């Protein structure tokens, strides 16, 4: 097995172009599991951890660019204010040791339907910056997930960064697992309110071959919410929203849960997170009026 260790992103892209079957390794929390158990014998590994530019994030005019190699621990510590949804999802990943190493780039690279950042990236309209020696392209999250563990990257491409707007409104993320730590999601859900645009982002994880938008739920809720004169939500609206979120899923029965349970749990998560997010919005409005 060759071990490629570029010091710059340009070098990494050149190496990946020469050897497209080289497997990138960032935090290693997915790749190493496969290597240690011999599930995978890649001809080469491409170590991304020496590339300083991948570990940086920047914010310009409310637009954030988060390098693919920024570990979860730093997203939690440094970006909780601007990207609350992503920070919430990051907090639920694995354990402190996993969060010190694991990265959003790795979550996207693995493209597991259960990856915790995916629903948040969808709900927040994230755009993935994919780069190759040929150039750079921007892939909306909604077009990035193609199938179970399949993403839209070409063999010579690497993920440079994820682009997100600083949250324009309340965001929530919730997941169901068998305990509070170190669990892969049985199902997960993210919601993002975009009050200025009177729009809602909502997405489900671990409940279909890919993470996906709950489009009908988004449209329904955007029409029901009284953005200009916010008032408490009707239970019927929460309930319908939950139903539509559950309908967006096409889950399977597996060791972690049955399809029926997943649908039920998603409806509960959707109602609950909507309640929290709207409460948050109401709170802000009252504070601003006071």
């Amino acid at each position, binding site marked *: *097995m*060759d*071990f*490629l*260790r*570029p*010091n*710059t992103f340009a*070098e990494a892209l050149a*190496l990946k172009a020469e050897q497209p079957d080289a497997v990138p*390794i960032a935090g*290693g*929390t997915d790749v*190493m*599991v496969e*290597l*240690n*158990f011999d599930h995978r014998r890649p001809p080469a*590994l491409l*170590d991304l*951890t*020496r590339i300083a530019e991948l570990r940086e994030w920047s914010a310009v005019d409310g637009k954030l660019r988060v390098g693919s190699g920024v570990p979860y*621990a730093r997203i939690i510590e440094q970006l909780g204010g601007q990207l609350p949804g992503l920070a919430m999802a990051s907090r639920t990943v*694995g*354990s*402190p*040791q*996993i969060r*010190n*190493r694991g990265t959003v780039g790795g979550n996207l690279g693995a493209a597991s339907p259960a990856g915790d950042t995916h629903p948040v990236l969808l709900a927040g309209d994230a755009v993935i910056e994919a780069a190759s020696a040929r150039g750079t392209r921007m892939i909306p999250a909604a077009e990035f997930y193609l199938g179970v563990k399949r993403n839209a990257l070409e063999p010579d491409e690497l993920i440079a960064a994820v682009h997100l707007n600083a949250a324009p409104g309340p965001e929530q993320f919730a997941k169901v697992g068998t305990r*509070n*730590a*170190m669990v892969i999601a049985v199902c997960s859900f993210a919601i993002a309110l975009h009050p200025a645009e009177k729009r809602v982002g909502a997405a489900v994880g671990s409940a279909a071959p890919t993470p996906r938008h709950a489009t009908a739920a988004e449209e329904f809720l955007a029409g029901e919410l009284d953005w200009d004169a916010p008032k408490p939500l009707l239970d019927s609206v929460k309930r319908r929203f939950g139903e539509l979120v559950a309908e967006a899923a096409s889950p399977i029965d597996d060791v972690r849960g049955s399809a029926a349970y997943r649908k039920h749990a998603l409806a509960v998560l959707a109602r609950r997170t909507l309640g929290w997010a709207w409460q948050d919005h109401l709170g802000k409005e009252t504070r601003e009026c006071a």
Partner: protein
Amino acid sequence: MIEVVPSEGGVVPAAVEVGLVVNGEARRLVVEPRVTLLDALRERLGLTGAKKGCDHGECGACTVLVDDRRIYSCTTLAVMQEGRRVTTVEGLGTPESPHPVQAAFVEHDGMQCGMCTPGQVVSAVALIAEGHAGSEDEIREWMSGNLCRCAAYPGIVAAVRAAAGGAS
């Protein structure tokens, strides 16, 4: 024959020379790229404190500090740590002069068989430095990456709390 690797970026051949600072001491070793940091520590450097409980990031027995952050040494490669500072349980204290966290584990019965203990102790040192020892609940949450098959959790939590300065 061992090929020595140029330190600039590029392709690395079959065996690789790596320089690490382990428990304060500069060490050089030659390893195959697929050797984990855990195997390098245990089998090449004779530091058997970090344990191999699961070899895939689930149990925490292999926890070490790299540049003061706790990580699982089983889910990273030795070659990826070039130039980094690695601290294992051996680097924290000695039987004659234990680290305060080690002393607290002894005093509060923070172990039974001891298999998970080196990882627990290293993790606890990091947890305290991170400022996550504010309450028992917080300690439990932030120790969640270290399992104990003997379920010595009450003693572990008590030890961490005591080492962090008690009821803060």
